């Protein structure tokens, strides 16, 4: 019965104090939109990061001139099965010649007589191993293998990318932290004001002998309802923002449909939790402080 009363009161409070409910809901929606945008940017940045890591995590193993074709193929097979390698591609002398001609353009015909470039294996290193130390170690390891002439990777580019990733990560974390604190502050204060506006209700409940848990419950129901509504508003806004960004910047990586749904669901769930926790803290503080006289 008391639970039914709490739910009924929670819904009724929403109706009774429309402006306060509207203010809380909008504050939460804005906070969630900010957090959602941050999450969206984070996901997009993660995609760019993994693309970048793939690009710089490329290594080329040149096959020794003395190696026969079958030995070169055996080397390719061995590299493919290496635990740190995610994919590998064998480039024969002829393919290397063709790539050279394509990239060199005019004047490349003068080298056309005979393939002069060595065969090679171009490999992608698994993302966790795309670090200067790991790549240097892998380079040294591969260098000792039979029929390997030389192993190269773009170390200066890797260093630059890693430095920039660290910098971007620190800036992102700082901005994210500020936004999170601002969002919690905004929501906490708005809910506190909403509950302050109901001090007579809380005082009356305390006066007639309602327990603290009982006083809290309708506010929690109301907070969760407001959070759910705010989550739906923010989720819708976020989705529209994301779709708009995709149409303006088609080069964006884009999220998988299930990630989009998870983001929307996550925003609503975060809204419910935010409303619940915010109301819990505000009403607990108020119950303890309010004087009946």
């Amino acid at each position: 019965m008391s639970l039914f009363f709490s739910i009924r009161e929670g819904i009724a409070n929403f109706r009774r104090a429309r402006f306060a409910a509207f203010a809380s809901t909008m504050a939460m929606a804005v906070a969630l939109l900010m957090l959602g945008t941050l999450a969206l940017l984070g996901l997009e940045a993660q995609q760019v990061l993994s693309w970048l890591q793939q690009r710089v995590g490329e290594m080329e193993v040149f096959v020794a001139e003395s190696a026969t074709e079958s030995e070169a193929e055996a080397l390719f097979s061995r590299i493919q099965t290496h635990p740190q390698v995610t994919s590998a591609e064998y480039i024969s002398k002829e393919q290397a010649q063709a790539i050279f001609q394509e990239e060199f353009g005019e004047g490349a015909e003068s080298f056309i007589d005979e393939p002069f470039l060595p065969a090679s294996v171009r490999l992608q290193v698994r993302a966790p191993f795309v670090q200067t130390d790991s790549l240097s170690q892998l380079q040294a390891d591969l260098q000792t293998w039979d029929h390997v002439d030389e192993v190269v990777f773009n170390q200066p580019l890797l260093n630059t990318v890693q430095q920039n990733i660290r910098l971007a990560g620190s800036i992102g974390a700082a901005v994210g932290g500020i936004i999170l604190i601002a969002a919690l502050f905004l929501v906490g204060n708005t809910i506190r004001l909403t509950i302050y506006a109901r001090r007579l209700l809380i005082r009356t409940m305390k006066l007639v002998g309602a327990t603290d848990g009982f006083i809290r419950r309708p506010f929690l129901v109301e907070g969760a309802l407001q959070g759910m509504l705010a989550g739906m508003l923010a989720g819708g806004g976020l989705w529209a923002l994301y779709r708009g960004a995709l149409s303006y910047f088609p080069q964006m990586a884009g999220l998988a449909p299930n990630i989009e749904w998870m983001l929307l669901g996550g925003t609503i769930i975060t809204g419910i939790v935010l409303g619940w926790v915010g109301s819990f803290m505000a009403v607990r503080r108020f119950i303890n402080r309010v004087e009946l006289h």
Partner: protein
Amino acid sequence: MIHFRNITASYTAPNGERRVVVEEVSFDIERAEMAYLIGPTGSGKSTLLRMLYMDHFPDKGATQVGDYRSDQISDSEIPYLRREVGVVFQDFQLLPDRSAFDNVAFALYATGKRKKEVRKRTIKALTRVGLNHKRTQFPHELSGGEQQRVVIARAIANDPWVLLADEPTGNLDPAVASDIQGLLVDLHHQGMTLLMATHDYRLVKEYPARTLAIMNRQVVEVDPDTL
């Protein structure tokens, strides 16, 4: 039974100053007794009442209401004490967005009563204060006296054994104040313990009862006829 045992109590005035209202005071109120607590504004009448519904605690000594002692009660027990005590204030403190019926029913729901019982008790309480016919009206549709009757109905809906009234007629004109006082005395005649803080000596003389006055930080018994 209500006990005040060696109570020293103070409160913080609106200007932040700490004021001692009583020192080493002891007195009892018997069950089903009626008593007035008189004294000028700021003398500490409200502070003494607040110590009974445990909204304020003595600096020294202890109050006891039924089985609950101020020096032994836990925070979680206070709501259960308040279910045994009805409280009426000068400012009515009715919820403006609920009808008279809902204001009374709310107090019962808040203590976990079931819907059927809530309806029965609410109608009984409103009938006792003579306001059942106005149960659908909202506070702003009721006169001051009627609002105070709703407050009294709310205070007695849970069948408390004691009613604490803090200047219940302070906001009412003399005729209505007499009516309200008559209603409170009727409740006392039906077996309710009544402790009422007031500075309206006219009412004390009109409905005489044991009278306790706060003077020089002490509580003394006075003859109502001498007021």
